[in-house]
């Protein structure tokens, strides 16, 4: 175990996979010059020359090339500088990468990872702060991965790179500097396996991405109120580990689902709907969702703080399901 930051853990995963498998390569804007804005691709150009491509500003082209290279047996790891720009390549992701295996009756394989720095970071307003996990969940053929810790980041990115199918890999910008212990060398986390980040008896808090950390903070505060909360981190939203979630719900009977994105038709909505369908008889209280209000991200710091959910929102949601 080494303590490292989230972005360092991702970089380690990338370097290890590139050393392991010659078909892994990197493509994206500014990925050579500074190793990308978050330095995840730093050092690749030096260690793996000829396997990193710094591109023009052309997201549809970048992902399009990735799809083709992947169909030809390569493993592209694409960086979209900000998730918001994936809107420029949705045909490539949704109609090409996701559907190719199906449309060709299993002939095609598109082992492509699209890395998506997302959420608020520096205050950059509405076009640089989005998340949109639920968009990609809704597309069959895509896998949606949301690591919440450096260790999960490493283990999930390595699995993503080895996956024979396209992966939308969410990296919350605010967590790049978060530190944590990370296993050395070979460390793979299977997709579709949620992680219970904290065990508890009273309430199941299903937390996505940075809401895991905030829920852990909330748990400490809630202990004082006498509530023992369990925190389930799905880690992959598609495939979704309904079993682990439902097991926890069966135990506690009370559910809060937390994400940083807007809840309306968001990733939390699917989880809530699944529980309302599969665990109804275990439920003792309404399923409460925590997320952003349904507004674009404003610029002003004074407004942003009313948008992004924090530990306090988890606390009040838990209070609601306990009352």
């Amino acid at each position: 175990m080494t303590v490292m930051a989230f972005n360092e853990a991702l970089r380690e995963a990338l370097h290890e996979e590139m050393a392991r498998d010659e078909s892994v390569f990197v493509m994206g804007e500014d990925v050579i010059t500074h190793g990308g804005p978050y330095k995840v691709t730093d050092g690749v150009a030096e260690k793996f020359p000829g396997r990193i491509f710094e591109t023009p500003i052309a997201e549809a082209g970048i992902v399009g090339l990735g799809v083709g290279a992947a169909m030809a047996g390569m493993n592209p790891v694409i960086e979209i500088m900000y998730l918001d720009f994936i809107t420029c390549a949705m045909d490539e992701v949704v109609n090409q990468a996701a559907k190719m295996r199906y449309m060709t009756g299993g002939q095609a394989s598109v082992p492509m990872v699209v890395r998506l720095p997302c959420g608020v970071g520096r205050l950059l307003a509405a076009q640089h702060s989005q998340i949109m996990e639920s968009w990609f969940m809704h597309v069959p053929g895509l896998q949606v991965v949301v690591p919440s810790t450096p260790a999960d980041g490493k283990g999930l990115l390595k699995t993503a790179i080895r996956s024979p199918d396209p992966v939308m890999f969410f990296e919350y910008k605010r967590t790049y500097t978060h530190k944590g212990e990370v296993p050395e060398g070979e460390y793979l986390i299977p997709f579709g396996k949620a992680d219970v980040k904290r065990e508890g008896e009273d309430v199941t808090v299903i937390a996505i991405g940075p809401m895991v950390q905030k829920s852990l903070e909330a748990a400490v505060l809630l202990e004082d109120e006498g509530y023992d909360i369990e925190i389930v981190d799905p880690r992959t939203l598609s495939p979704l580990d309904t079993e682990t979630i439902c097991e926890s719900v069966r135990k506690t009977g009370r559910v809060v689902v937390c994400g940083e994105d807007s809840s309306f038709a968001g990733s939390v909505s699917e989880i809530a709907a699944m529980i309302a369908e599969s665990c109804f008889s275990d439920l003792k209280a309404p399923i409460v969702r925590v997320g952003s209000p349904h507004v674009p991200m404003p610029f002003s710091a004074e407004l942003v703080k009313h948008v992004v959910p924090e530990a306090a929102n988890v606390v009040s949601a838990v209070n609601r399901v306990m009352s």
Partner: protein
Amino acid sequence: MSLTQEKCLKMYTDMWRIRLFEEEANRQTNLGNVVGTLHMYCGEEAVAVGVCANLRDDDYVLGTHRSHGHCIAKGAQSDKMMAELFGKATGTCRGKGGSMHVADFSLNMLGANGIVGAGIGPTTGTALASKIRGTDQVSVCFFGDGAAARGTFHEAIAMGSLWQLPVVYVCENNGYQQWVPRKNVAVVDSVADMAGSYSIPGVSVNGQDAIEVYEVIAEAVARARSGGGPSLIEARTYRFYGHSLGDEQQYRTEEEVEERKRNADPINILRDFMTERNWLTSADDDQVQQRAGDEITRAAKFAEESPWPEMGEVGTDVLFDAKEVA
């Protein structure tokens, strides 16, 4: 690759195979056996055969919504293709793709595509794969003149040029974009004229003449294979049928179509070329047509007799089935 009698005969045969395949598919549509729609390639066959006669089996080809011809010319089996159009389990895509998604990965024919212009990026990507791996495979992308308007054309070709990738961009300019004459919606006549924006060679050829296509593509393929980077080739061509089945074709006259069929049928043009050189006797010609006809009849029979996909197929091939992993 130099032009031989054998090569010509292959191209000539493939044109007939394409023509008869489509006419049969059309007939099967009227019988209710083929559903969905067909984008008929008839009239444009010289492009597919002229291009593919320059390719190796391991070269990559990506197509369009109008790709029956590209598939056959690249070597795909007509029986499996026909079965695909029927939606049968024996189809190239096990009935999951249909006419707009016919593909044969064993021949590196990576598929037709229902989204206009969507193949240009991926073909540039297969070329990137070859470059990274250091193989000398060439990638060829077919796309329509309408596709040249899409941003993908602009973005992908620039990258193909930037990294000097082994790719040939082949625009099939048939003068129409669905129901709209190209001149109503395009501001340059020849797509080849756009090559300058990407610092690559751009050449316009008569797409009805397989020989002309063959020779221009031979040069482009040779350049790509030897590390000389991409080319943009426009083949000026014409489709004999409507955009897709059921098209009333209010946007063009019957006379126009008849005139083209009379004067610009690629099969006739290649036949004349071969006949002149004594490369094709009338008996040869009959045999070619006979064999192609038999093949297509067998294909239709195969398709008709093939089983439907089983219900469980709905849920397979969404993701790689983990159970299949060694």
